[in-house]
């Protein structure tokens, strides 16, 4: 009986590891190498300075073509900005509002409650400006790709100057090592000194890629730190509770032959 129970429980663990793993391995593009990220592991947290650098990269590089529609300026509190800083950042953007009493739409400076405005008015406009490819929204990018952050980092650093010999690269496309099919419409977005960091961090392509990936992980999972912290408490509580329940169970069953 005990053997059966153990086998069955081991099986339950195996099925989750097994099928979850195989479902994710589907696809024929190279697997991006695993990177070290500050938020990994049971106790990993975000590095606020890195998130702010990543935000800088987003603002100066990505935001030209990509939207970030699930993030409001007020959310930037999560990466360590205070209220005044957030108000200042929001005010840099023009937000379309209205209609006013005359029935007209008008632009006004952004406030903390506004969401990041999208660079294009609609998908058709986005496609028209980008050779037919729509730049995807970045809010959930790190959750919406297999190997999330490793893929995003791999993609941003995975451009080759020239396609390998014999590869038929379409006009206006770029060769990327990790993009499915290798032909990507996005020109290499990062270059050294693309953004000037105020904290003295070297502004290399790799550093930019690392920072923007961290920022996008935060936009995808802003609850991560709260989730893990609560999870620790919940699981510690459950371990103690379960141990006590086991003790009570032993005591109650002590005199029963079973």
């Amino acid at each position: 009986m005990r053997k059966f129970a153990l086998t069955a429980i081991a099986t339950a663990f195996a099925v989750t590891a097994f099928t979850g793993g195989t479902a994710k391995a589907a696809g024929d593009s190279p697997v991006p190498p695993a990177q070290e990220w500050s938020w990994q592991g049971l106790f990993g947290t975000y590095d606020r300075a890195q998130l702010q650098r990543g935000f800088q990269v987003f603002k100066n590089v990505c935001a030209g073509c990509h939207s970030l529609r699930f993030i409001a300026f007020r959310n930037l509190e999560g990466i360590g900005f205070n209220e005044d800083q957030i108000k200042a950042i929001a005010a840099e953007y023009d937000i379309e509002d209205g209609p006013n009493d005359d029935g007209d739409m008008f632009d006004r400076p952004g406030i903390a409650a506004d969401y990041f405005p999208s660079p294009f008015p609609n998908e058709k406009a986005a496609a028209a400006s980008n050779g037919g490819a729509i730049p995807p929204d970045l809010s959930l990018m790190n959750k919406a790709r297999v190997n999330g952050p490793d893929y995003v980092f791999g993609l941003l650093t995975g451009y080759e100057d020239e396609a390998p010999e014999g590869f038929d690269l379409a006009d206006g496309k770029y060769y990327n090592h990790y993009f499915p099919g290798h032909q990507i419409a996005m020109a290499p977005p990062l270059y050294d000194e693309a953004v000037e960091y105020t904290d003295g961090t070297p502004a290399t392509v790799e550093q930019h890629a690392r920072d923007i990936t961290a920022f996008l992980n935060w936009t995808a999972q802003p609850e991560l730190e709260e989730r893990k912290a609560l999870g620790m408490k919940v699981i510690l509580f459950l371990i103690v509770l379960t141990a006590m329940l086991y003790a009570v169970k032993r005591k109650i069953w002590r005199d029963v032959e079973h």
Partner: protein
Amino acid sequence: MSAPQWNNKVVKWVDDRLPVISMLHHSAYEYPTPKNLSYMWNFGSLAGFVLVTMILSGIFLVMNYTPHTSMAFESVERIMRDVNYGWLIRYIHMNGASMFFIVVFLHMFRGLYYGSYKAPREMLWWIGILILLAMMATAFMGYVLPWGQMSFWGATVITNLFSAFPIIGDPLVTWLWGGFSVDNPTLNRFFSLHYLMPFVILGLVVLHVWALHSVRSNNPTGVEIKSPQDSIPFHPYYTIKDLYGLGVFLIFFSAFVFFAPDYLGHPDNYIPANPLVTPPHIVPEWYFLPFYAILRSIDFSLFGIPAKLLGVLAMFASIVILFVIPWLDTSKVRSSKFRPVYKWFFWLFVIDTFILGYCGAKAPDDYFLGIPGLKVIVMGQLSTLYYFAHFLVVMPLVGKMERTKPLPASISESVLKEGANA
């Protein structure tokens, strides 16, 4: 069986008019339970717990969810980001579905191993299968609600299966969709039914427990309770044992919710549904993979039945066949503990379902475990063949031919013997 005398006046007043307290006392307190149940008997109460968890978390999700194609995805993200502890409620609900299937599959494998489907427990077993079917429908429709890419394309693929039926197929699919493609009417009706089905399951669970309490629990020996020494009251013995099991289960559940909430899901479902872009691999959730593999492994027509229809029929048959196993299994012995031959076939069957799950996750032209020459489709076909052969050939034949080990005279005798050996 007689109702206990209640001393508390209020309790007595209520119980004299509606004997609900006596009923609870009878079925949750004094219910005579075999004293030798192993931890494999914990999964029934765990399934009940998960059902309640799903209903409660679902009710709170609905308060913030919008069932419209243009707002469903956004409303889910609002839950994740702006609703207080919304991420917790959603991750509980999302992972709870997987937990429900893990617990129920283990519960069913236990029933298969110990012959819990045999007389007089056929009705109990049938209701269990109905619960599984209702769960599958509920899980499928729930997965559509966030309106991500896998929601949309999963719904498209699965509803399209019904088009395999001759003549009525296409009108049936249009009727299911409420239009000419999976669209807002589909999302709306799936939402409505997804809210309804859990209560249908709850009703079936009541019947399941009712049936259980009238035929009594099976046990690892498969020998019925014969004398009062064989059983103990449900409370406190099994209430505490179930609570301990619940603690262990909650640790497992929480590990997913808090530390790997998206592990069991598919990344594509974080991309909003787009009817113009088909994902390269449309894969169902893990708990449907074995059935998906059976569906896909039929790539040939037979007796003039086209392959697609045959696949659909095979997939449904893989569950429907469970209804008749009380008669397919010809053995007089319930528990596989005393069935030296069948026991091996049982574990082969378990492995077979895992192989099917693996095949369901892979593309048909991939190689099975990377073994050159062995395509996933072929392995899926072999496993499908064994899946059905297990019920249609192994169960009737082994039951007739096997020499079973001697059964203990009673539960208490087996307990004493094991105690002496330990």
